[in-house]
C-alpha cells in the first residue's frame, strides 16, 4: 500500500502532538502562582488555608448579588467572587460557591429573607442626579440545615477574609472555645465585696452565647488548672499566689491568648479612696511581657457621665476619671481585630501603660485617651467634687497588644515549691497578650459598651489563635481624587491623542527616511562616492 507524502507528514506530526499534550498536562499539574497585587489581594492567608484543610462537612457560600449592580459595587463584587472561589478551590471539595439574584426570583428572595439577608440601600449618582436604589449585596454561609452565618451587606472588603474565615470557624468548630475568667474578688470600702459571680453576670451571659465560660473565684488556696482553656481573662495579678502566677506564666508561654486587666491603683468607690498599688512581683512579671503599669490615675475630657447623687434631684455629670475611648477620637485602633468593631469603651479609674521594649515582642497601642487627658500621681482624688482639673494635657496609653514569643518569667525552672516537669521556658509559637489599664472595667459589666468590649476581646482571642494572622487589605480599590471637569476633558483628549500622535510621528519619520534613501544616488555608479 502506497502511503502518500501528506499522510506520512501527518503521521510524523503525531509524536509532536503527544509531546505537546504531555507538556500541557505537566504544566497544569506542576505549577506555581504569584500574586502581584498590593496586599496579596487574591491569595488566602495561611490561617485561612490551615482552617480550610480542617473542613470536613459541606459548606455552602451563597452570594446574593443583584444582577445590575451600580459601577462602584462591581469591583467589590468581583473581588468577593474571586475570594470565595479561592475558598472553594482550597476547601477540599467541601465548599461550594453559588451566586443568585434575589431581585429576579421571588423564591430566591424568600430564601434570602429566611437566611437573614435583606436589601441594601445605596446612593448612586446617575446622569448627574443622586438617587437611592435598593439592591442585594449579601453573603450567606450555611452548613446543613442548622448552621448559618449571614452577612446582610458587604460594606467593606478590608477584613472580608477574616470575617469569612471567622464565620467558617464558627460553623465548623466542634464545641465552643473555653474562656476562663480568673481573678480575686474586689474588696471595696465599707465591706462591700465585688462578687465575681454576681456582678459580672452580664459578661458571663454575653460570652456564654458563643463560648464555654469558666470562672475561677481566686482565693489564696485555689489551685489553678488552665489546661483546658482556649483563652484567659485575668485581673488582680498582684494578689495571685506565686504558684497561681506561675500557672498564668506557663499559660502565656504555651502560646495561648490572654486578656490582662492591670491597674496601678486600688480604688474603693464607696469611701472615695484610691491608693497606689504597692510594687510587687507582678510589676516584674509585666516587665517581662513588655509593659509597665504606672501608678497614675488618668482623667480625660472625653469621658462618660455618672449619676451624681450629692444633689437633689440627682444629676448626670461628666466624670473625667471614666475616660471614654471612641473610634471617632482615635481612642481605639481601627485596624486591630479586637477593637476595630468597637465604637466606645469606658475604662473606669484607669492607669496609663508604658511600653518596655523586649526582643521578640511587638507592642501595639490599641487604646489611648484623647489629647485632652491628664493624670494624678499620688494623693489621688476620685470624689467628683474634689478631683483636680488638668495642669497640662497629654495622651496616655490605656490598651496594648503584645505579640511575640514570650519567655517564662521564672527562667529555666519553676519557682521554689512548685513541681512541673513540663516547664516551658520560651514559646514555640507567637501569641498575643492584650493589656488594659483598668481592672474596674469589670464593674461596668451592665454597660452595653463593656459587654461589646468583652465580646470582641474574646472573639479576637479565640478566633485569632486559630486563624493566625489574617492581613487586612487596605486601600484595595484606589479611588481617584477630586477631578474638575476641565481636568477630565484634558485627560480624555490626551487619551485619544498621545498614542496616535506617537504612531503618526513614527510613520512620518519612516516616510521621510524612505524619501531620503530613494533620492540618494546609488553608490555603485559614482566611483567617488564613499
Amino acid at each position, binding site marked *: 500500500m502506497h502511503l502518500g*507524502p*501528506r499522510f506520512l*507528514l*501527518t503521521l510524523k*506530526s503525531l509524536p*509532536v*502532538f503527544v509531546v*505537546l499534550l504531555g*507538556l*500541557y498536562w505537566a*504544566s*497544569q499539574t506542576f*505549577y*506555581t*502562582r*504569584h*500574586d*502581584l*497585587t*498590593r496586599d496579596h*489581594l*487574591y*491569595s488566602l492567608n495561611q490561617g485561612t488555608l490551615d482552617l480550610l484543610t480542617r473542613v470536613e462537612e459541606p459548606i455552602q457560600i451563597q452570594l446574593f448579588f443583584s444582577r445590575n449592580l451600580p*459601577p*462602584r459595587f*462591581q*469591583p467589590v463584587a*468581583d473581588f468577593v467572587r*474571586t475570594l470565595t472561589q479561592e475558598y472553594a478551590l482550597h476547601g477540599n471539595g467541601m465548599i461550594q460557591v453559588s451566586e443568585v439574584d434575589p431581585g429576579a426570583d421571588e423564591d430566591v428572595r424568600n430564601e434570602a429573607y429566611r437566611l437573614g439577608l435583606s436589601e441594601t440601600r445605596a446612593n448612586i449618582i446617575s446622569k448627574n442626579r443622586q438617587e437611592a436604589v435598593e439592591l442585594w449585596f449579601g453573603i450567606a454561609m450555611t452548613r446543613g440545615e442548622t448552621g448559618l452565618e449571614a452577612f446582610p451587606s458587604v460594606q467593606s472588603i478590608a477584613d472580608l477574609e477574616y470575617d469569612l474565615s471567622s464565620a467558617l470557624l464558627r460553623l465548623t468548630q466542634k464545641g465552643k472555645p473555653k474562656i476562663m475568667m480568673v481573678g480575686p474578688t474586689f474588696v471595696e470600702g465599707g465591706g462591700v465585696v465585688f462578687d465575681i459571680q454576681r456582678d459580672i453576670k452580664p459578661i458571663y451571659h454575653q460570652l456564654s452565647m458563643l463560648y464555654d465560660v469558666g470562672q475561677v473565684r481566686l482565693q489564696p488556696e485555689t489551685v489553678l488548672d488552665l489546661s483546658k482553656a482556649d483563652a484567659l481573662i485575668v485581673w488582680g495579678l498582684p494578689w495571685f499566689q506565686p504558684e497561681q502566677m506561675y500557672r498564668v506564666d506557663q499559660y502565656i508561654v504555651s502560646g495561648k491568648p490572654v486578656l490582662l486587666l492591670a491597674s496601678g491603683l486600688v480604688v474603693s468607690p464607696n469611701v472615695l479612696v484610691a491608693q497606689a498599688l504597692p510594687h510587687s512581683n507582678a510589676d516584674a512579671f509585666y516587665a517581662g511581657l513588655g509593659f509597665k503599669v504606672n501608678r497614675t490615675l488618668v482623667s480625660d475630657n472625653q469621658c462618660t457621665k455618672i449619676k451624681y447623687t450629692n444633689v437633689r434631684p440627682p444629676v448626670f455629670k461628666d466624670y473625667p476619671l471614666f475616660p471614654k475611648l471612641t473610634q471617632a477620637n482615635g481612642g481605639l485602633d481601627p485596624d486591630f481585630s479586637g477593637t476595630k468593631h468597637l465604637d466606645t469603651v469606658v475604662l473606669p479609674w484607669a492607669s496609663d501603660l508604658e511600653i518596655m521594649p523586649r526582643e521578640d515582642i511587638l507592642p501595639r497601642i490599641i487604646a489611648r485617651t484623647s489629647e485632652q487627658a491628664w493624670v494624678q500621681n499620688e494623693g489621688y482624688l476620685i470624689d467628683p467634687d474634689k478631683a483636680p482639673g488638668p495642669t497640662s494635657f497629654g495622651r496616655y496609653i490605656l490598651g496594648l497588644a503584645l505579640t511575640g514569643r514570650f519567655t517564662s518569667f521564672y527562667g529555666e525552672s519553676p519557682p521554689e515549691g512548685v513541681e512541673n516537669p513540663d516547664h516551658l521556658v520560651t514559646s514555640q509559637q507567637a501569641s498575643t497578650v492584650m493589656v488594659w489599664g483598668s481592672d474596674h472595667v469589670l464593674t461596668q459589666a451592665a454597660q452595653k459598651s463593656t459587654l461589646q468590649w468583652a465580646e470582641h476581646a474574646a472573639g479576637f482571642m479565640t478566633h485569632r489563635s486559630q486563624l493566625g494572622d489574617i492581613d487586612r487589605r487596605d*486601600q*484595595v*480599590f*484606589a*479611588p*481617584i*481624587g477630586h*477631578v474638575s471637569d476641565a481636568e*477630565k476633558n484634558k*485627560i*480624555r483628549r*490626551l*487619551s*485619544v491623542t*498621545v*498614542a*496616535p500622535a*506617537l*504612531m*503618526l510621528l513614527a*510613520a512620518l519619520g*519612516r516616510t521621510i527616511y*524612505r524619501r531620503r534613501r530613494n533620492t540618494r544616488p546609488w553608490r555603485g555608479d559614482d566611483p567617488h562616492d564613499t
Partner: protein
Amino acid sequence: MFLTVAAKEIRHALNSQFALILALIFVIALALPVFWSHSATNVFVSGLADLTPFFGQLPLYLMVFIPALAMRAWAEERRGGTYELLLSYPLRPRDLVLGKFLGNYSLCLFCLCATMALPLLIFQLGNPDPGPIVGGYLAAFLLSAACLAVALFVGSLTANHITAFILALAALALFMFIQVPSLNFHARFVNVARGIVDTRDLAFYGLVTVSFLYLNIKRLEMGRW
C-alpha cells in the same frame, strides 16, 4: 533566516497605510471605554483608579484586531502569486512561519505598548495597584501571541483576505467563548490580568502558540507537495 522574513514583514507593514490605520483605530478604540464611555469601565464613572475593567475587555478587541492584522500574511502572498515563489526559496517552512509570526507580533507589541499611555494617565488621577497593570500587559502579550498563531494558521488555509479574516475571527471567538474553562482564552486572560501570575496560564498560552505555529509549518510543508 526567519529574522529576514520578520524584517520584511515589518517593513511591509510600516510602508502600508492599512497597518497604520488599523493601529490608530486599535489604540483609540481602547481609550474610549476607559475615559469616554458611560459604563463602569470608565474610571470617571466608577470613581476608581483601576484598569481591570479595561483589561477585561481587551481580549474582545484583540479578537478583531489580530485577524485584521494577520489576514494578509498568507492570503496576500497567494493572491499576488508570490506564495509559490516563497516556497521555492531556500528557506525552511519553519523560517517562513516564524518570520511571519515575529513580524506581525512585533507590530502587535508596538500597538499594545502604545496603549501604555492609559495607565500613565490613570496614575495622574490616583494610586492604582501596579500588580494588575503588570499582569494585564503580560496577559495581553501572551494572548496576542496565541491569537496571532491561530489567525496565521487559519489564514494559511485560504487565498482570500476576507475569508481569512472571517475564519480567524470565528476561530478566536470559539476560543474566547468556549464553555470549557481550561481552554477558554478569556477566562485565563482575566486571571493573569488581575495580577495573579499562574504558570498554568502562561504555559497554556505558550503551548497554544507553539501548537498553531507547528500546524502552520505543517500546512506549508503540505503545500510544497
